[in-house]
């Protein structure tokens, strides 16, 4: 089970956090501090796993961003490493070669997409196509509501002219 997902920049800035196990805000800050200390300082040719407080953290660096997922010791590390990549590929497809700035300004989109990939710290959908379809459907629902609102306000505007 994945206990939490962290996206941290090379400078140690938090870009996204998602917690599937209960941690208080204080604990969260501490976890992030500890792990960025451990992970950001690791060289490029080392393995993608660090052992931490009896858990394992699987991480992978994409350009300036580190994607980290914390799992139990007996979980399958490589499987989780590829969940990270799976998520990154979906982000990439959604944003069109995703970069850190996309995720900074659209962190809410990154959350929506993550919710289609993981629930309860478990993989929910392994088809990128399906995830893309569901996210697009959500976006169109939002857009439709926006248009509707716009047209209503137009009607009101015209009526009260």
């Amino acid at each position, binding site marked *: 089970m994945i206990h939490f997902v962290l996206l941290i920049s090379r400078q140690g800035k*938090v870009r996204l956090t998602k917690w599937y196990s209960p941690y208080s805000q204080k604990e969260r800050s501490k976890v992030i501090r500890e792990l960025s200390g451990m992970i950001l300082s690791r060289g490029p*040719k080392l*393995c993608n796993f660090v*052992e931490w407080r009896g858990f394992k953290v699987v991480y992978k660096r994409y350009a300036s961003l580190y994607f980290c997922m914390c799992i139990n010791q007996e979980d399958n590390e*490589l*499987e989780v490493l590829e969940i990270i990549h799976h998520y990154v590929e979906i982000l990439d497809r959604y*944003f069109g070669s995703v970069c850190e700035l996309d995720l900074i300004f659209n962190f809410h989109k990154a959350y929506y997409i993550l919710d289609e990939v993981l629930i309860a710290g*478990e993989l929910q959908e*392994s088809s990128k196509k399906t995830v893309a379809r569901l996210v697009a459907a959500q976006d169109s629902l939002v857009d439709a509501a926006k248009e509707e609102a716009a047209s209503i306000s137009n009607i009101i505007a015209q009526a009260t002219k």
Partner: protein
Amino acid sequence: MALSGMRGLSVFISEIRGCQNKEQERLRVDKELGNIRTRFKNEKGLTPYEKKKYVWKMLYIFMLGYDVDFGHMEAVSLISAPKYPEKQVGYLVTSCLLNENHDFLRLAINTIRNDIIGRNETFQCLALTLVGNIGGREFAESLAPDVQKLLISSSCRPLVKKKAALCLLRLFRKNPDVVNVDGWSDRMAQLLDERNLGVLTSSMSLFVSLVSNNHEAYWSCLPKCVKVLEILARNQDVPQEYTYYGIPSPWLQVKTMRALQYFPTIEDPNTRRALFEVLQRVLMGTDVVKNVNKNNASHAVLFEALALVMHLDAEKEMMSQCVALLGKFIAVREPNIRYLGLENMTRMLMVTDVQEIIKRHQAQIITSLKDPDISIRRRALDLLYAMCDVSNAKDIVEELLQYLGTAEFTMREELALKAAILAEKFAPDLSWYVDVILQLIDKAGDFVSDDIWFRVVQFVTNNEDLQPYAALKAREYLDKPAIHETMMKVSAYLLGEYSHLLSRRPGCSPKEIFGIIHEKLPTVSTPTISILLSSYAKILMHSQPPDPELQNQIWAIFSKYETSIDAEIQQRAVEYFALSKKGAALIDILAEMPKFPERESSLIKRAEDTEADTAELSAIKSRAQQQASNALVVTDQQPANHPLQVTQLAMVKIPSINEENNHVDQEVTQTNGSLGEGEPQNGDIFGDLLSPLAIEGPPGVSGTETLSEDGALALAPIGEQENAVKPIVDIAEIFHALCVKDSGVLYEDPYVQIGIKAEWRGHQGRLVLFLGNKTTSSLDSVQAVILSPSHLKLELSSVPEVIPPRAQVQCPLEVVNLRPSRDVAVLDFSYKFGTSLVDNKLRLPAVLNKFFQPITLSAEEFFPQWRTLAAPPLKLQEVVRGVRPMSLGEMANLLNSLKLIVSPGLDPNANNLVASTTFYSESTRSMLCLVRIETDPADRTQLRMTVASGDPTLTFELKELIKEQLISIPTASRPPVHQQPQPTTQPISSSDPGALLAGLL
């Protein structure tokens, strides 16, 4: 630039990004929070768009780590909005801001339930996602039946179904007692027939959780799992979108194999054959390819297949295939595969007998111990430990010792303990064992607990052949310029007992042995001094015919310590002095210690206690049992053969340690400074060494009552600790050690270890407390409170209330020194073990001399300063009496260790010392301190000390600090500053932080 689609939000994020530093960022965040708060206050004017924008901002701020203690209501209220956009935001932000323990969630349960049972699919998805991510007990109670209904409903579409499966998984995992899964095996079997692989993946995760809880109920699902694997392995009808880099859903394969590992065996021969065909195909057909992702995915499946093969204990043929694969993996370049190869080899050792095959890879594994990656080194260490036996112990332990020199701080203690255990378990001969432990102490003394050296003493005592060798080794180590205190203890003990066996060798006459031990006395702590005194007594006894000169020297030392402030030292000095005048009787009384009764090793017992559940250890244990004939055995000895025993004297000061089942009568004897082991056979961790060494004689002789009634031992009673759990280290001793070094263990008991690491810069310091849970269960109600004296500003970061099993948490502590003072900060540390509360008050080594920075002055710089600071209160002079005798060199070392740097040759008189340092505090800023000590070569017990600085308090405090060190009173409770100093203040007993605290307040 890609923008969020909400201008206000994008602007805010840009501004946060533009902040130059943390302080600016905080100001910006505070401003925004203030703004949001006001806007929320008159909610009426808020459009849905604005409301959405503000809760997004709140989430962003919260994600950055700031506390957001309002607005939860607004986020939760969006959940009940009628339109999708608001609802979506409400669900997502709520699931990020709140966790399962949050009261606010209760308000939303009804809305969430309505969404789940409603007809709107998109609303169902939102609700299931939230419950799946943060659902707690109340959710399980009120929603589980609805979620179950959805999951098995035929009209429910895949997008809802897969979410329902994981949502149920969460509720079941958290509260298996609340979610009713009776009769779910049929439902589960149906779900495993699912054709949609997205739904099947989620259902398989749910299935793993259900079988892990109770596999008996799900036998009917087993063939279905094998069927799934077959389909995937043959890549039959697997839609393109569910293959990942050409591999049919690796995640589903892994999960299915994981589920099968919860069944103890597969009985149906057809199912079994089908499964093994699949596994065989995976093991044989996985090649290393260029593409990283494909490689990872195929190896994820491969490693899971390996685990399943190990579990099903297949035909030996397949097992050796697995070992061969792993052997290949640990040597590849790809670090992930190397890591997993080592990890799985260790797992394999636990389940099957593949020791011999794995040994072939020993050289490669040892290479991995030097890997640049600490993750891999840890795996290699675990594997070496698990694979060690008599045949390879020598190689492995020597490698571990070598590695100890370069290992990270965080790994050293584990390394030291593992090396000690392996050395004891599998020693090919005893002298090697002694070598290993002495090297261990030499290289990592700080990490070698007392029981390790107790054990060496025990072995040497019980094996006559070993005694001259051990004594010689100890003698060799004493030649080193700097040796660890633990080495001093064990060397002094061994030489006291056995140095007479060496007397024919050059440099080993009683006088020379005495000289070389005594040279180190000024550098050791109080408990070690007691051991040294015993050694002197033994040396005196062994030098026959008596050497009058040596005798006088030793008597002089005894008579000096007769007035020692430390009860234990005083008692030993008085008794040894009296005994040594008795002539022949001395020889009887101080004869060699008798052999110890055979006991289970305390070390191995300790390892078992703390690691009882790790299978590595059980593996090593079972092998150790098979090879028991080779292991070291402490030979049994009939006490009756040793009439001398009754009067034998203890050499080792018994540390005030005991296990939780401490007996009151033991405590009573402890208060008298010399412990009588009430129940010598009770198998205490330390019992094996303590009881026969105890002063009143052999096991079984009830010395307890006689001792406690013995009026002659009119020593100051030590305040009793009420804790049921006793520290296994001498807290006072390590505090004193930590006063002159910056890292080490501050406290340790059987369950908890607190380490400390400090950095000092000017008047500021940063300490990190490492709170380690040594047990395999969580420690609850952990509390750490700092009681700080007025001159220090201390800020301890939050300490988690629960420390998970075998975990270590770090708590940074910021220190600012406001004024010079010798008051000590205290850490009040408590936790609950079982039902008993353990509470310790520990002094923190944030002491005056930590705020010194060494400075060396030339004569031209020193004397003008010295003359400027002419008179009291800036310059104070005092004649100090009762100084513990030390040579000028030793005194210089002592001052240097306090960062008072001695400038040799600055004072024209060779009997004087001149030292200087810079002191930092907020009130004094950096301030030069000068010290001059004039000694009297005729009487080493007195000296005149002059201290000068630009601050009267600093001068006084520094003078007192040096005086304390010179007369070696452990930091004592003392009257408030500016009262007349009292050179012989009441000493505080080592084990009574409570009294210490009282003294402070």
